[in-house]
């Protein structure tokens, strides 16, 4: 990342943390936007687009703040559209392909359930600008988690086909769950300072919610495979490059274009 060398070490950590939060929302929003006009029904099309728009709002706030602290003249748009794949800090789950509706719902349920716990924690952050963004976002995310859970229950406890697809949708994503709860040396000082949330501490609540919803959906409880990680340090799957190529193509072709 082309950051100014004069940045304090703690500022750099904070910027990276904000990129992790903002990129999660940004990349998942782009994935949800791919459903626009393609979802199974007009109503689900709007549901998914609404969730995506909420996530873009969150990404804008987090990335703008990252750019502001960096002080190198980059705002949220610059960070979203003029950064290369290795500089993205999102988790691997959000960049996964949409698959069918059930696979998209599996991802949304797992991600939003985790993000809700994360943002609930961040409302108490000692960094007031993060606490403020989290307080705004937490209501949105509660809705995302609820509607995704409703769909998991209906598809899981629906027809043979919907159940089969829901199981396959979850099977795609189980391996990306561990990463959501993985802290590292970069975040630890921020956690100690009360700025960041201790990710590992969120796992128990997550497991309780996931298991309760899967039980209601009459689905088998997860047996988590060995987790795949790396997104937080820029080691992404092959899917992210393709996603960025689509998302960034217009701003990169016409860098000075305005509405």
């Amino acid at each position, binding site marked *: 990342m082309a950051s100014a060398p004069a940045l304090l070490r703690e500022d750099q950590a904070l910027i990276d943390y904000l990129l992790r939060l903002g990129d999660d929302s940004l990349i998942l929003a782009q994935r949800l936007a791919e459903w626009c006009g393609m979802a*199974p*029904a*007009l*109503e*689900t099309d*709007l*549901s998914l687009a*609404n969730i995506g728009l909420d996530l873009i709002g969150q990404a804008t706030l987090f990335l703008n703040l990252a750019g502001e602290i960096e002080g190198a003249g980059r705002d949220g748009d610059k960070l979203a559209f003029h950064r290369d794949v290795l500089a993205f800090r999102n988790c691997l789950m959000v960049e996964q392909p949409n698959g069918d509706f059930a696979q998209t719902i599996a991802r949304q349920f797992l991600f939003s359930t985790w993000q809700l716990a994360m943002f609930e924690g961040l409302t108490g952050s000692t960094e007031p600008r993060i606490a403020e963004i989290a307080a705004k976002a937490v209501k949105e995310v509660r809705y995302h988690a609820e*509607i995704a859970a*409703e769909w998991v229950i*209906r598809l899981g406890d629906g027809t043979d086909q919907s159940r089969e697809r829901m199981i396959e949708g979850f099977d795609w994503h189980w391996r990306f769950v561990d990463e959501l709860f993985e802290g590292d040396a970069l975040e630890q000082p921020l956690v100690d300072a009360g700025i960041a949330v201790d990710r590992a501490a969120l796992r128990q609540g997550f497991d309780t919610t996931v298991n309760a919803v899967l039980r209601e959906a009459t689905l088998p409880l997860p047996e988590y495979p060995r987790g795949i990680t790396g997104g937080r340090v820029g080691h992404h799957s092959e899917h992210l490059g393709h996603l960025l190529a689509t998302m960034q193509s217009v701003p990169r072709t016409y860098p000075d274009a305005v509405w």
Partner: protein
Amino acid sequence: MSRDWPLWEVFIRSKGGLSHKHVGSVHAPDPELAVRHARDVYTRRLEGVSIWVARSSDIVASDPAQAGPLFEPAETKVYRHPTFYDIPDVVKHI
């Protein structure tokens, strides 16, 4: 998929004190998702504070062919309109 879902009529209360007003309809597999679909389709721009949904098939409608006997007799009863009263300015919704 939507072909298999029943239709629901959506009623939105735009703010406290006003009554729910019919705004349109959504497809949904059950009442809970009908409310969520109504939220996602009809309240994206702060249109409401409360949502009702009802199965379209549960709505009982008057017969358009009966419009004459049902409604025309009221046409000549002007005295039923409360137009002979002065309404105070503070009363907003009447």
